[in-house]
C-alpha cells in the first residue's frame, strides 16, 4: 500500500510529459502530423464519452457512432442548407443538442432492458441511422457523403489547437464528473444496481444523465469534426467499424479512467498511420497489439502505468 504514490506519480509525469509534447508540437511538426492529431483528439473525446457510459454506468453502448453521427450530420446538414445565413457555431451547438435529444430518445427505452439487450438496442440504432442517411440521400448526401460549405479554419495549426483545447476541456469535465458524487453513484449503479436502489439511488435517472452527458460530448465532437474535415460521410462518422475503433481505444487505454480512453484513441490513430506503409498488414498489427493489451493488461495503458498490479 505504501508504494502507491510512486506509480501514481509515474502516471502523473507521463501525463505531464504528453501534455508538454502536445503543446510544443505545432512549433515543429508538419501540417500532416497536426492534421492526424486533430482527428485523434476528436476521437479521444468520442472514446472518453463512451468510457463514462461503459466504465462508470456499466452500460455497453455499441452505438457511440449513433450519437456522433446525429451530431455531425445535424450540424453538417444545417450548414449545407442554410449557409451562409447561419453561423457554423450555431450549427455545432445544434449538432450537440440533436445528439442529446437522440440520445434520450434511445436511452429511455434502451435503459428499460438490461445486460446485453441494452447493447443490442444501441447497435440497432446505428444501423437505422446508417440506413436513413443512405435512403435520404437528398438531405444527407447518401453514400457519397455530405459536402459542407464552411470550415472553421483551414489553418492546420489553428485546427490542432481547437481540437486540443476541446479535448482538454471535455476530458477535464468528464474526469471531474467521474470523480464527483455522481460518478460514485454511477459506479455503484453499474456494479450492483439492486444494492444502489436499496441505498436510495434512482439508478435509471443516473444512468440517463450519464447517457445525456455522453451524447452531448459525442455530438459536439462529431459536429466540430465535420467543420474540420469539410465533409460528413457514413464511413467516417457512423459506420460500425468507427464505433468499434472507439470502443477498442477506450478499453485499450483503461476502462473506468476517462484519461485512458484519450490515450488509447491517440495511440490507435497514431499507430495506424505509422504503419500505413505496410498496407493491409498495418490493421492486423494494430489489432494484435490491442488484443495483447486487453488480454494481459485488462486495466489498459493506465493500468500499466500504475504498475500493472490491480489495487
Amino acid at each position, binding site marked *: *500500500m505504501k508504494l502507491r504514490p510512486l506509480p501514481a506519480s509515474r502516471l502523473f509525469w507521463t501525463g505531464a510529459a504528453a501534455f508538454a509534447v502536445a503543446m510544443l508540437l505545432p512549433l515543429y511538426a508538419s501540417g500532416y502530423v497536426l492534421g492526424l492529431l486533430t482527428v485523434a483528439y476528436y476521437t479521444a473525446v468520442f472514446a472518453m464519452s463512451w468510457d463514462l457510459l461503459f466504465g462508470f454506468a456499466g452500460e455497453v453502448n455499441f452505438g457511440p457512432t449513433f450519437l456522433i453521427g446525429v451530431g455531425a450530420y445535424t450540424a453538417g446538414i444545417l450548414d449545407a442548407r442554410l449557409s451562409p445565413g447561419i453561423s457554423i457555431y450555431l450549427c455545432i451547438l445544434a449538432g450537440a443538442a440533436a445528439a442529446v435529444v437522440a440520445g434520450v430518445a434511445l436511452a429511455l427505452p434502451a435503459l428499460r432492458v438490461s445486460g446485453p439487450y441494452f447493447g443490442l438496442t444501441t447497435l440497432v440504432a446505428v444501423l437505422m441511422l446508417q440506413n436513413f442517411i443512405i435512403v435520404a440521400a437528398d438531405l444527407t448526401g447518401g453514400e457519397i457523403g455530405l459536402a459542407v460549405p464552411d470550415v472553421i479554419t483551414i489553418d492546420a495549426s489553428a485546427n490542432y489547437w481547437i481540437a486540443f483545447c476541446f479535448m482538454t476541456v471535455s476530458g477535464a469535465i468528464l474526469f*471531474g*464528473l467521474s470523480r*464527483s*458524487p*455522481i460518478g*460514485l*453513484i454511477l*459506479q*455503484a449503479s453499474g*456494479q*450492483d444496481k*439492486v*444494492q*444502489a*436502489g*436499496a*441505498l*436510495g*439511488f*434512482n*439508478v435509471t*435517472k*443516473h444512468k440517463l*444523465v450519464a447517457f445525456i452527458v455522453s451524447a452531448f460530448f459525442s455530438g459536439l465532437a462529431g459536429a466540430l469534426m465535420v467543420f474540420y474535415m469539410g465533409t460528413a460521410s457514413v464511413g467516417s462518422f457512423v459506420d460500425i467499424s468507427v464505433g468499434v475503433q472507439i470502443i477498442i481505444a477506450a478499453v485499450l487505454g483503461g476502462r*473506468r479512467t476517462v484519461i485512458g480512453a484519450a490515450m488509447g484513441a491517440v495511440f490507435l490513430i497514431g499507430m495506424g498511420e505509422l504503419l500505413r506503409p505496410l498496407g493491409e498488414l498495418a490493421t492486423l498489427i494494430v489489432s494484435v497489439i490491442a488484443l495483447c493489451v486487453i488480454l494481459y493488461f485488462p486495466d489498459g495503458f493506465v493500468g500499466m502505468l500504475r504498475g500493472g498490479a*490491480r*489495487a
Partner: protein
Amino acid sequence: MTQGMSAPILEVTNLTKRYGGLVAVKNLSFSIAPGEILGLIGPNGSGKSTAMKSIMGVERPSAGSIKLDGVELAGLPSHQIARKGVGLVFQHSRPLARQTVLENIKVALLPDKLTHLFADKDTDGKARAIAARVGLAGVLDRKPATLAFADLRRLELAKAVARHPKLVLVDEPFAGLTASEVADFSQLIREFRVEGRAVLLVDHNVKSVSALVDRVLAMYLGEWIAEGAAADVMRDETVRRVYLGGALVSTARAESLFSDRTPVLQVENVGVCYGKARALQDVSLHVHEGEFVSLVGLNGAGKTTLFNAISGLMAYSGEIKWAGRPLRPGSPAQIARSGIVQCPETRELFGEMSVRENLDLGGNALGGEECARQLNWLFDLFPILKARQSQMARTLSGGEQQMLAIARALMMKPKLLILDEPTLGLAPVILETLSRALDRLRETTKITLLLGEQNVTFALPHADRVYVLDHARIVWEGPPDRFEAEAAANYL
C-alpha cells in the same frame, strides 16, 4: 424484550408474490414493532427471501399491502422505499473496488441528487463515525479486496445504517462468520433494537437467530406456518414436520455389517475457502462400499462444496481417498472414470437434446451391448423415461428431469453415486418415486450412495448413516434413528 404494546412500524398484510405459475409467497401477514427483532425463517425455497425483497421493492409484490408507519410501500421502486426508511444488509455484494472502505461508506451517505457535484463537508465525519460503530475504524483506507470476509459484511452493515433506516432487513446475518464474529454482529444488531429500529432477520433455521430475536415467523412453501417465541416455534408440530419429517421407519444397516475394513471413500480434514469465506472446515467422513450415507445440512452448509471437492472440481486442503488411494491430483474426468459420479443439484441436463440422447451420452464409455442392458435396467427403474425417450429434456417436468439426471449418472455405472439435493423444488408425489428408486438401488445393487439433502424427511429413510453439516463443519454423525433425539435441535 418484546415491546408488544407499541404500535407496529411495519405491517405486511396478505403479501403475495407470483412468478408466472409459481407462487413464491402466499398471503403472508406479519408486523414488527419499533425496537423489535423478528426472525423470518424457512428452508430453501420457502419464500422468505422473496418476502424480504418484496418489502425492499427489489421484487414487485403481486398482491397485498406493505405499510411502513402507515405509508403504503407496495409497488414503489426500491430507491423510494429506501428513502422512506427501509435499509437492506445484503449477504453478497460488490463494493466499489477502486475506492477505499471510507469512500464506500461515503457513497451510501450521498443524496440522490444530480446537482450534487461536491460531497458535503460533514460527510467525512459521518462516514468515520459509522465505520467506528461497526468496527471498521482500523481499515478505513484499505480497498475492499484486501478486507477479511467479516469486514466486508461490516461494510454492508455500515452502508445500510448510513441512511438511518427505521426498518433494517438483514439477509442471513451470520453466514460464513466465526463464533466470535457472530457475537460481534449480534451486538451490532442489538444496538438497532436499543435505537428503536425494527429489524427483520432472514435465515434458514431458528437456531441460528434464536439468541437474538424477540419473535420468529416460520415459512414453508411460501406460506406462514408458525409464529411466536423462538422456543415455541422450535416446539411447533408443523415446524418440526417441515424440518424433521414425521415418524421415521428406519431400515438402516449397522456400520459393522460392511465387510471392508478400510472405507471405500475417506474424507480427511478437508477444508475449502471461497476467497475469504470458509466453505468447509476440517471435514472428515467416510463411506463403506455399498453403504448409503446421507449428508444433511441446510442451504449454504457446504454440502455441494464437499461434493465438488470429491469430484475434483475444487481445490481443497486435507486428503480425500478413494479405495485407499488419494484422489489428488486426478482431473475431474479421471475421478469420474474411477467410479465416482456426481449428480449435481442443478442437474446439468442437455436441455436441447432428447431424453435418449442425454442417456446415451451418459453411457458413452460403455460398449453397445452393455449400454443397451444398462438402458433397459434404467427404464425399468424409471418407466416414465422410457415413455419420454424422444422428448427434449428441457420440456420435462421438474421431477422427470431429476429422474433423468439420476439415470444419466447411473448410465456411467458408478461405484459411488453422489446425489446432491435431488428433492429440491419437487412435489411430494415425485419424492415417493425417487424414494422407491433409491430403495431398489439399495436392495438390488452394490452401489454406494452419498446423498446430500436439506430435506431430512427424504434423507433419513435412505441412510445407513447420517452426517450433519452445519456452517462448514460436521457437527453430528450417527444412525438415522438417533437423529431426532440428538441432532434435531441443531437443525431446527
